[in-house]
């Protein structure tokens, strides 16, 4: 049996602020992981990635990040994505500061 596809979000850093951004279902870049579109189909994920990569004047370093779908939206499966979604642990800076 082929390995089950881990759901993904499209993510990057914003060109101007460097802040972590995610691709929403309506094609806008959103700042909050909860608002990101969670993609459960591999082919769609690849297409969304290519689309996003072509938006070079908005986003830098676009890639697909593994997520677990939950009632409150996508949740990181790896701690690196968890930090990206909240901010550093030594100061309340970054996303957690605005939350």
């Amino acid at each position, binding site marked *: 049996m082929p390995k089950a596809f881990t759901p993904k979000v499209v993510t990057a*850093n914003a*060109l*101007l*602020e*460097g*802040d*972590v951004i995610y691709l929403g279902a309506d094609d806008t870049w959103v700042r909050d992981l909860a608002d990101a579109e969670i993609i459960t189909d591999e082919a769609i994920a690849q297409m969304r990635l290519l689309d996003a990569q072509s938006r*070079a*004047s908005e986003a*830098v*370093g676009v890639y697909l990040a593994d997520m677990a779908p939950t009632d409150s939206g996508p949740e990181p*499966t*790896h*701690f*690196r994505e968890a*930090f*990206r979604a909240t*901010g*550093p*642990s*030594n*100061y309340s*800076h*970054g*996303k957690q500061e605005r939350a």
Partner: protein
Amino acid sequence: MYSYTDFDAAFVAERNRQFRAQVERRIAGNLTEDEFKPLRLMNGLYLQLHAYMLRVAIPYGTLNGAQMDTLALLAEKWDKGYGHFTTRQNIQYNWPELRDIPDMLDALAEVQMHAIQTSGNTIRNVTADHFAGATADEVADPRPVAELLRQWSTDHPEFQFLPRKFKIAVTGAEQDRAVIKAHDIGIQVVEKDGKIGYRVLVGGGLGRTPMIGKEIASFVPQQELLPYVEAVVSVWNLLGRRDNKYKARIKITVHEHGIEDIRARVDARFEETRKAFDGTDLAIFDEIKAQFAAPAFRNAPEDDFTAAYDADPVFRAWADSNLSAHKAPGYAIAQISLKAHGATPGDATAEQMRVMAQLARDFGHDELRITHEQNVVLPHVHKSDLPQVHKILKAHGLATANIGKISDIIACPGMDYCALATARSIPIAQEIATRFDELKIENDIGELKIKISGCINACGHHHVGHIGILGLDRAGVENYQITLGGDATETAAIGERTGPGFPAEGVVPAIERIVETYMKERTSPEETFLQTFRRTGMAPFKTALYGEEAGKKARAA
């Protein structure tokens, strides 16, 4: 203090002007990220986990009050009110926005600073002892020769496409504070029969394959240093492995060929290179030396110091741990710890930077240094001023008396900021410092250096920590490998792994067990952690960490 030549200033201004245009073109969509990335890296601009990061160079870790004030201005105006001093004697800003970078660079240029990183496979910024020009144990100030090497290597046509990057460090003292044995070339200023010369080491480095540098020449006369170093770089330029990034550094070349073989090749090449030097470099060297001339030290009684030392236990504790011997009578070198217990190692607020700048102006001949251990130094303070200096530091959270102690931890930014990280470093450092402060045994433990890196790149120098901690990603969970017995000084050594790693919450208990073992095993409070480890070996520590069986195996091995 060294100041830019007009040529340097014009070069920086031109670079800033170009970079401003490049940023504008990137924002306007006329440059792709692939085109822009090498340009921004050349100008010290990185994209990290949460934001851009600007890395500003502080050559030889030396700066004056006005420069420190500008670093404070950048922190306040374009960042979140603080900056992070690194193990490469730089400062990093973690939160600037792309649009603001050109203004930040212009502000830096006003005080002769820049963020130009000699990036790529070239000879990088030369580093030097942070006590240079002040310490009592120095043969000569190493910075003039470091600056000479910088000028010689900058834009050297033969060395623009080296197999890999190349780092040089220089010390003028027997006691090595510049970690010269962990550099591609380490240079020690030495004296023989009344003449100044250089002891040259080659092939050191940390990272994936840590190596301790080996002596290639015990004495190179002053006038022959440049041709000699040129011969070393040129031999490596030919032999160095360009097929594999991880085998390209000179440490691998030296390891594969052996130091004797490399020495013979260098000596042969040196016969050629020395002919090409006509002595102009010696004239330049004299000019540079004049720029690094010592300040006019004053003669004054030390009574105020003695009185405070006798009367105030807090001052006494600070003086005992944070001061070092100065070459001028009545003076001391004062270290300002950026390691308040529980704080982020190496971070200073804009306000703290301004306080340090003012202290340098009022009491320190307008000089400051940044150490690779992420602290700040007032290199020239008259002892009679120290009680006043201490009082001001204390009022601004800068008087932590822990230099060289267990809470004076080196930690790289790790996964809290760094895009390359495999685990966090900062919270580990915070927890260790907080714990040992609670236990109140820091002074009893004595000298103990903990160094933490958040990945194998080893920016946190973990290999040469008495206790080294390396953060890794083990199947999606942070895991920490501990090494013991590393040493960054003239008796340099690479630490030895204790065994399997520890989860994040297991690190502090493990460090506690290591420290308890040391205190039980030491012959007297005078025997340092490193001395004890060297005497007992790993066995008692293994037993303490992993149980009797593991200890027995270590003893038998």
